[in-house]
């Protein structure tokens, strides 16, 4: 057993871990980053990036399918799955190389292998103990969960398996209408797959403002995706021919594959966390507002911390923890100020409180909402986007939530995020007329309407 000492030892090289390592190095710490698989973690290798590459291929498939309707003589002949994978892998590889370069340039020591927390200040990897003179950061991420009694394997797929199918299924059932489920539904449908979503809750994307789930469901139905909400699964069976899903009520569903997208659970077992005194709550590492675990000098970031399972939340927490450790006393960013984007067709994007959350927090009488339909937005008409922008405001007060549905609205969330995080009043935004013709004008019109001075809005 040899020993090696660093200021910081970060366990897990995903979004949260590598952000903590890079920021830690910038702040002058010597840093070891322990990763058993590939630097970049879930997001880069089996999450955000590969799914969004497939979703872009899906977008191009849809655009070429409908090109004739706008005067472009193009024809869509199908999906070349190996070609899609090659493109996706090209994107991942370039970003992976970039990240490796970044870690090297920051003089972060990348330790390859499985780490165990062997004391509050040491992580063992194989025969080497990496001691942390200043702090340990736990960033071991999450793994796909399934339903009790339902194991991944064969025709029952996790998102990771769904990303590397050797060929496209003809039909698919997707269990779960959350972000991952609807993104796969959307891209498979564009690729020509017959898709059925089964969601136990009453609507799709149930964490979003209810208006979003409703609009997404309507759009999905128009696209030929079958949506079954409020429906529970009783049993799943598979054989050589297909998979059969028995529902709590009604006829069973049959398909080539079943994607289980019912959520992801923290990866915190079997790595010595609890033995070192770190407490868990339903598997999540318990932390305070400054992301400190119960053990002094041990922090946690990313999907192991309960809350939004998003890569940029991991980045933000990683940066925060490095600065916290360095004594910079950073201000915590409220979870509600973290933007959320679902990259389906149509996209869903939001930041801040839903109408229901705002009404619960402020009282229904103190909340004011406005919805601007993309039908009134020139650029949305041009690209054929339908949907809306919804603002939620505290009466006579700041905008506390923004919710959008429509093609390409994901990029509009950046403006919304500044407005919500800086607690802007509609009157602050109203004089700043937006560029014409952009989709962000829809946001501008909604702010104008809330400020009592609608422009392209019927009253």
């Amino acid at each position, binding site marked *: 057993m040899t020993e090696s000492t660093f200021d910081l030892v970060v366990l897990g090289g995903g979004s949260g871990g590598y952000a903590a390592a890079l920021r830690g190095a910038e702040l002058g710490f010597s840093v070891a980053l322990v990763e058993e698989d590939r630097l970049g973690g879930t997001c880069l290798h089996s999450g955000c990036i590969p799914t969004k590459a497939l979703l872009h291929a899906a977008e191009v498939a849809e655009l070429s399918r409908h090109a004739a309707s706008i005067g472009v003589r193009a024809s869509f002949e199908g999906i070349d799955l190996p070609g899609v994978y090659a493109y996706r892998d090209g994107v991942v590889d370039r970003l992976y190389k970039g990240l490796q370069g970044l870690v090297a340039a920051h003089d972060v020591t990348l330790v390859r292998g499985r780490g165990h927390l062997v004391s509050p200040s040491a992580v063992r990897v194989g025969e080497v103990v990496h001691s942390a003179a200043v702090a340990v950061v736990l960033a071991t991420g999450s793994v796909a969960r399934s339903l009790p009694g339902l194991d991944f394997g064969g025709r029952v797929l996790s998102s990771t398996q769904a990303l590397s199918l050797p060929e496209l299924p003809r039909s698919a059932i997707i269990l779960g209408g959350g972000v991952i489920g609807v993104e796969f539904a959307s891209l498979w449908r564009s690729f020509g797959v017959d898709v059925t979503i089964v969601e136990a809750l009453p609507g799709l994307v149930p964490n979003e403002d209810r208006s979003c789930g409703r609009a997404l469901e309507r759009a999905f139905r128009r696209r030929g995706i079958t949506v079954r909400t409020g429906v529970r699964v009783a049993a799943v069976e598979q054989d050589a021919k297909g998979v059969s899903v028995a529902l709590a009520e009604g006829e069973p569903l049959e398909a080539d594959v079943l994607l289980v997208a019912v959520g992801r659970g923290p990866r915190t077992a079997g790595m010595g966390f609890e033995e070192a005194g770190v407490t868990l709550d339903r598997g999540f590492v318990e932390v305070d507002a400054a992301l400190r675990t119960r053990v002094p000098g041990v922090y946690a970031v990313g999907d192991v911390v309960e809350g939004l399972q998003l890569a940029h939340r991991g980045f933000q927490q990683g940066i925060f923890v490095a600065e916290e450790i360095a004594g910079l006393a950073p201000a915590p960013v409220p979870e509600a100020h973290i933007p959320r984007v679902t990259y389906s067709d149509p996209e869903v994007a939001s930041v801040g409180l839903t109408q229901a959350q705002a009404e619960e927090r402020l009282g229904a009488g103190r909340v004011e909402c406005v*919805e*601007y339909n993309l039908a*009134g937005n020139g650029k949305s008409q041009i690209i054929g986007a339908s949907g809306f922008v919804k603002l939620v405001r505290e009466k006579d007060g700041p905008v506390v939530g923004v919710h959008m549905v429509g093609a390409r609205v994901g990029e509009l969330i950046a403006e919304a995020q500044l407005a919500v995080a800086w*607690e802007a009043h509609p009157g602050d935004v109203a004089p700043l007329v937006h560029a014409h013709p952009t989709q962000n004008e829809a946001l501008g019109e909604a702010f104008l*309407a809330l400020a009592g*001075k*609608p422009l*392209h809005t019927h*009253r």
Partner: protein
Amino acid sequence: APAAVAPAPAAPAAFAPAEVRPLAKPPVRKLAKDLGVDLAAVAPTGPQGTITREDVQRAVAPAAAPA
């Protein structure tokens, strides 16, 4: 048809009394909030009576280290 928008409840009241509050750009208001500075108690030096970032920083008691 464009713009099926829920009627904006406000009367044509761009600068209705309810909007009256100390003038400051949103990031400055946010800074004041983070620093615990009450904008109503800050003397504005910016154009049109706007409270500037410097006004807020000046209002922070020298003893209280900024967060």
